[in-house]
């Protein structure tokens, strides 16, 4: 049985019914996902990292207790599922790292962040894991904004503009944020059995069109009872963008430094970049969200 769906703007034919935008069955697809045996090691890897090996056309990704993914030429993924793994766990790493590898192999830059539509452009909320991206994105959803992606931003150049192609209509939300926004956990599933982060459907809040990037807000939290927004300028813009790639070591591991440089450099010229600092105090979250909206939307 084959399933056809779309993620990150790519048509997928898959032996696994992963979450994506459903589309009618047809002959054409960009990426073929099959279940099969993956090698223990690549015969010609030029990078051996922690839980991965890679060369210019192949990437072997080993997720402990879940699956091994062999991603080739940006158009094929072989998945060897571990015996004890649950489907949702395989899906989690397929949509995250494995698809980011596909993007990188195709010269599309996977950037770490969530994005929502503002007029006919989009805003990226970036920052390290735990900075509060999903929480801020959730606030913009409650304010009526449409989402393009949560966690991975697929960036490419189209008609001389850096655009973001929407990923798939689902987000991952930690239990504390679910509680904070009174989201119903009953209808949501944990991303993995032992992790209290929930898969949350975004179909009603999702936009399928690719949009030009207007600005990037790099979120971080400080142990102070104050907020701050500060524009990044000059060469630091590029450096900050590079630091916030989905996985900063991917371009080198896959021999895609040149494509990455071109896209990030273009983005640094096109978009404004800000550091947005929140307080680590959860009590100040509402005030911070309003502060962020005032600064981002005006």
């Amino acid at each position: 049985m084959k399933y056809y769906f779309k993620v990150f703007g790519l048509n997928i034919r898959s032996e696994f019914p992963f979450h994506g935008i459903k589309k009618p069955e047809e002959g054409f697809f960009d990426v073929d996902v099959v279940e099969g045996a993956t090698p223990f090691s690549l015969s010609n890897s030029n990078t051996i990292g922690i839980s991965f090996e890679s060369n210019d056309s192949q990437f072997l990704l080993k997720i402990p207790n879940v699956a091994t993914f062999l991603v080739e030429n940006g158009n094929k993924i072989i998945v060897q599922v571990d015996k004890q793994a649950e489907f949702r766990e395989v899906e989690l790493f397929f949509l995250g790292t494995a698809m980011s590898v596909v993007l990188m192999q195709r010269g599309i830059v996977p950037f770490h962040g969530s994005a929502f539509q503002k007029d006919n452009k989009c805003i990226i909320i970036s920052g390290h894991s735990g900075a509060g991206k999903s929480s801020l994105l959730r606030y913009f959803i409650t304010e009526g904004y449409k989402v393009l992606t949560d966690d991975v931003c697929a960036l490419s150049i189209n008609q001389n503009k850096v655009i973001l192609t929407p990923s798939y209509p689902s987000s991952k939300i930690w239990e504390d944020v679910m509680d904070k926004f009174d989201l119903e956990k009953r209808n949501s599933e944990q991303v993995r059995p032992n992790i209290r982060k929930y898969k949350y459907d975004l179909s009603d809040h999702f936009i399928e069109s690719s949009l030009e990037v207007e600005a990037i807000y790099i979120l971080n939290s400080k142990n102070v009872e104050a907020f701050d927004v500060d524009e990044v300028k000059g060469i630091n813009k590029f450096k900050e963008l590079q630091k916030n790639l989905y996985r900063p070591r991917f371009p080198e591991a896959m021999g895609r430094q040149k494509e990455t440089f071109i896209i990030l450099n273009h983005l640094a010229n096109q978009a404004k970049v800000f550091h947005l600092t929140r307080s680590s105090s959860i009590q100040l979250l509402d005030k911070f969200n309003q502060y962020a909206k005032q600064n981002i939307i005006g």
Partner: protein
Amino acid sequence: MPPLPKNIVWLVSYPKSGNTWIRILLSNYLSDEDKAVDINSIQTSGIASSRAILEKYIPFLSSDLTFSEIDNLRPEVYKKLSEESDGIKFIKTHDAFTKNKNQQDIFPISATRAIVHIVRNPLDVAVSFAHHSNIPVQKSIERLNNHSAKLANSFSRLNNQLRQKLLSWSEHYYSWKAVDTPYILVRYEDLIADTEAAFRKIIVFLYNDVDEVKLKQAVKYSSFELLKEQEENTSFKEKPIFAESFFRKGIAGSWKEEMTLEQSNTIISEHKKAMIELGYLKL
């Protein structure tokens, strides 16, 4: 394959035992400038439990992994970090020295150049930890006595820090003491009594040599009064939001004013052996 370079010096301590002070002393000693290092730009290489260090090396998001899966990756991360460093990396940690589920040391010996282990009287630690965490002293005592105490152990939210196994105060002390690698034990109380002498021992241990001018400068610029003044003027990013200040008293023995006899006895009976060994308790 050639052996891994051993580039990591672990700055080890139970929380609130003077680790930050050692990092500031080292930063000032290694600084080329004749002025106090900014407390918010301490030139050591962060904390081992930083999620950012892990994220730098792994191909997936650490937030999609369980605590024990992360523990299984940590030795590999520190080996890579050591391998890619062109010199000594001073890395702070509050973790106890434990093994992961794969029976590997979380802090691999093959990447470890040395251990600087800072200890402090647990009676003072309990009081200081209570102020730092904004919790009653009794709760802090329970943590010191808890054999499975952990930091950043929340299941419902993502923490900037990785989950750290602390164990009880004594177990923490003995876990690091038993590691077979170059090791120096530093008592916080000795650092207070004669900072220059205690810090000189650390520098000689690390470098087999000491620059006396830099040493005196480092001690001068790391005085408790100066650190407190810096914190009052600029605030310190490592201070928890609800703690009044990070640099609080900087003295030994303040537990006597902030703890009941019964409370101190609870600590003493649990940690008697280590306290005697460290000179915190006379027989």
